[in-house]
C-alpha cells in the first residue's frame, strides 16, 4: 500500500497515524510508514522550546480573540483551539519562499509565517474583508467559501513549475489548508485531479477536526480521508494532528518532495476542534461532553510541556515566561483591535476594479453628495 501509516499510538484511529510525541509526552524516535518513508525530527532544545512558545502563543491569542468577540469587539471569530499543533507544526515546516493558502482558521500558520497577528482581525471585526497582499506575506487571503482555495493553491503551484522553480532543494512549494468538510466539495476534488495531472509542487493539508460545523466525519466519507489520495495518484499520509512534531516532520518531508519535483502529497492531520465552529455556533447541540473530554487528554500543548519537563529541556521558569510573553502579546493584540478605526463609508466604493469603473465612480459621487446634503442639518 502506497499510503502507509504507522499503527503506533494507543490513541490512534484504525489504520494508525504518524505520531512522534504521545499524549503522555513520550518521544517516539522515528516512524516508518508502510511505503518505507521514515519520519523523525532532530530538534535542538532551543527549537523544542520555540515550538512550545508558538503553541502557547497562538492559543493565548486565540483565547483573546474569543473574549473580544464575546465583548462585542469582533463580529465573529473562528477559533483554532485544539488545532495548534497541526498549524504550528505545518506552518514551521514551510520555508520562506513557500506559499500558503489558508481557510479562515489558520491563525496559527499565519503566526509562524512571522506575520503580525493583527492582520486578519479587520475581517473578523468587520472593518474590511481581509485586505492583505498574498505575495508579500507568502500567505493568501483568508478564503471563506469552503475549499475554493485548494484550486487557487494548485494553480499557483502550476505557476511555480512553469517558472522553473522546482526540482532543486531551494525550490518553491505550496501548501493548501482545508478541513474534513471541504473534502466533499467538488472543487477540492478537482484540485486533487489537477495537482495529480500537473504534478503540482504542493501539499494538501487537511485538518480533520472531526466536524463540519455540526456534521461529523461520517457525513463526509466512508474511508479515512488520507486514503483518498491514492485514487488521485499521489501519496496520502495521516498524522496525529495534535502532535506538533509529527505535523512538522511529515509536512517538511512532503514540502521538500514537492519542491524537489516529486509532486503533491495529501496530509490528513487527525485532530479535534475543541471549541465551537465559530463564535456563532453551539457545539453542545451535536456532540457529547465525554467526547470533548477524551480529546482534552490528547492536548497538543500539555504533551509537549510534559516532554520538555521530563527531558529537563525547560522548567517552570520557562513555562511561566512563555505564558507571560503570550499574555503581553494578547494584550497588545487587544489594544490594536480596539484602536482599529471603522472605515470611512465612502471607502466601500474603493478597489472594485483595478482600472476603475465610471458606474462605481458615479455612485461614489452620488453617495458623497447625499451625505453632504445632511451636513449642518439635524440628521
Amino acid at each position, binding site marked *: 500500500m502506497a499510503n502507509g501509516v504507522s499503527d503506533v499510538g494507543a490513541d490512534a484511529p484504525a489504520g494508525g497515524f504518524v505520531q512522534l510525541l504521545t499524549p503522555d509526552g513520550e518521544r517516539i524516535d522515528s516512524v516508518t510508514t508502510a511505503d518505507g518513508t521514515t519520519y523523525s525530527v532532530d530538534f535542538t532544545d532551543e527549537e523544542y522550546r520555540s515550538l512550545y512558545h508558538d503553541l502557547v502563543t497562538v492559543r493565548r491569542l486565540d483565547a483573546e480573540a474569543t473574549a473580544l468577540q464575546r465583548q462585542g469587539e469582533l463580529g465573529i471569530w473562528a477559533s483554532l483551539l485544539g488545532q495548534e499543533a497541526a498549524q504550528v507544526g505545518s506552518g514551521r515546516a514551510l520555508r520562506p519562499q513557500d506559499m500558503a*493558502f489558508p481557510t479562515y482558521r489558520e491563525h496559527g500558520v499565519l503566526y509562524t509565517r512571522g506575520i503580525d497577528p493583527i492582520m486578519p482581525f479587520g475581517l473578523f471585526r468587520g472593518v*474590511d*474583508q*481581509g*485586505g*492583505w*497582499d*498574498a*505575495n*508579500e506575506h507568502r500567505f*493568501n*487571503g483568508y*478564503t471563506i*467559501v469552503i475549499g*475554493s482555495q*485548494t*484550486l*487557487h*493553491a*494548485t*494553480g*499557483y*503551484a*502550476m*505557476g*511555480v513549475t*512553469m*517558472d522553473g522553480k522546482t526540482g532543486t532543494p531551494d525550490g518553491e512549494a505550496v501548501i493548501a489548508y482545508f478541513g474534513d468538510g471541504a473534502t466533499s466539495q*467538488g*472543487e477540492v476534488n*478537482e*484540485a486533487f*485531479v*489537477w495537482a495529480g*495531472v500537473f504534478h503540482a509542487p504542493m501539499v494538501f493539508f487537511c485538518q480533520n477536526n472531526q466536524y463540519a460545523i455540526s456534521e461529523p466525519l461520517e457525513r463526509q466519507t466512508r474511508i479515512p480521508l488520507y486514503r483518498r489520495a491514492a485514487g488521485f495518484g499521489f501519496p496520502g499520509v495521516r498524522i496525529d494532528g495534535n502532535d506538533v512534531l509529527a505535523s512538522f516532520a511529515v509536512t517538511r518531508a512532503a514540502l521538500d518532495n514537492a519542491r524537489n519535483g516529486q509532486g503533491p502529497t495529501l496530509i490528513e492531520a487527525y485532530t479535534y476542534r475543541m471549541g465551537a465552529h465559530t463564535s456563532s455556533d453551539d457545539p453542545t447541540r451535536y456532540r457529547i461532553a465525554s467526547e470533548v473530554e477524551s480529546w482534552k487528554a490528547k492536548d497538543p500543548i500539555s504533551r509537549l510541556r510534559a516532554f520538555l519537563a521530563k527531558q529537563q529541556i525547560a522548567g517552570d521558569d520557562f513555562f511561566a515566561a512563555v505564558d507571560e510573553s503570550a499574555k503581553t502579546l494578547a494584550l497588545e493584540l487587544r489594544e490594536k483591535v480596539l484602536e482599529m478605526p471603522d472605515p470611512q463609508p465612502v471607502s466601500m466604493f*474603493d*478597489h*472594485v*476594479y*483595478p*482600472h476603475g*469603473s*465610471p*458606474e*462605481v465612480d458615479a455612485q461614489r459621487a452620488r453617495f458623497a453628495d447625499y451625505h453632504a446634503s445632511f451636513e449642518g442639518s439635524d440628521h
Partner: protein
Amino acid sequence: MAETITLGKALNHGLRRSLEGDDKVVIMGEDVGKLGGVFRITDGLQKDFGEDRVIDTPLAEAGIIGTAVGLAIRGYRPVCEIQFDGFVFPAYNQIVAQVAKMFYRSKGKVRLPIVIRIPFGGGIGAVEHHSESPEAYFAHTPGLKVVTCSNPSDAYTMIQQAIASDDPIVFFEPKRRYWEKGEVELGADLSGAFPLHSARVVREGTDATVLAYGPMVRTALDAASAAAEDGRNLEVIDLRTISPVDYEKIYASVRRTGRAIVVHEAPGNIGLGAELAARIQEQCFYSLEAPVLRVTGYDIPYPAARVEEEYLPDLDRVLDAVDRSFGW
C-alpha cells in the same frame, strides 16, 4: 496589413499576438491545445507556443477558473476558454465568489487579470446548453467586466485589450458569427485603438436608436437596412461593453432620436434590456417619444433547435418593435 478574415480567425490572430507580446499570457481550457478548441479559435497556438502556454486542462470548469486564479496570483495572465455558454455554471462559484471579489477583498493588493472567453448565443442548431446567453448573470456581479464583440475587427482588437487589462473580464463571443468575414487591420497598434469599454455607433440614424450587442448587432443592422426602405432612418449602437455600459453614448443618441429599442437573445426578464430601459427613462425622460421597447428571447429555457428561429429575435421582430415605437 488589412485582411478579410472570419471573426473566429480574428480572435485566433488576437490571441496569438497576446501570446507573442507577453510571456505571462497563458491559454487554458478543454481541447484548446492539439484540437485548437471545438470552434478552432485556438488553432495552432499550442504547436507554436508549447503545452505550458496553451494548456489542455482536465474536464472541469471550476478547476479551469480556480487554477487560473492561482496562476494570476503567481503573476500569470490566464485566458480561460469555457467551451459553451451552458457549461460555465460549474465555474460560476469561482467566477462570482473569487475572480470578481479578490481585488476588493485584498483592498487592491491582489489583481486577477483573467479573461474568461465564452462562446454564447444560439442559431447554430445545437442541443441543450449550447445556445444560451448568460451575460446578465455576470454583468450583475460587481468586480467583473463583461464585453462582447460583434465583428472580426473588434474581435481582433478587443481580445487583446481584454488580455492586457488588469480587470477580470468575461469575454462573450457570438458563436454563430464566428464564420462571418470582415476586414481586420492585423498588427495595428493597440494604443490607438478604439477603447474596450466604449459603445460604438455602427450605423448613424435619426429616427430611433437600436441597441444591440454580440450576435444581435448584425440582426439590428439588417433591420436598419430594411427600415430604410420604408423611409425610417435607424441608428444602431453596438454596446460592445455590457459591464460597465457606455451610457453616455446611448443617452446622446436617444436624446436625438427620441426612441430606443433594445435587442438581445437572452430572456427579457431582469435582462440587460431592463436595465437599459430604466436608465434611459431616467436620463432621457423629456426626449422620449415612446417607451423604451425590448426585443429579446422569451422567458423560457432555450428551446429545441427546430424552433430556435422562432425564439431568437430576428429582423422582423426588430422592425415590429420599431413600428410599435412609432405607433405610440
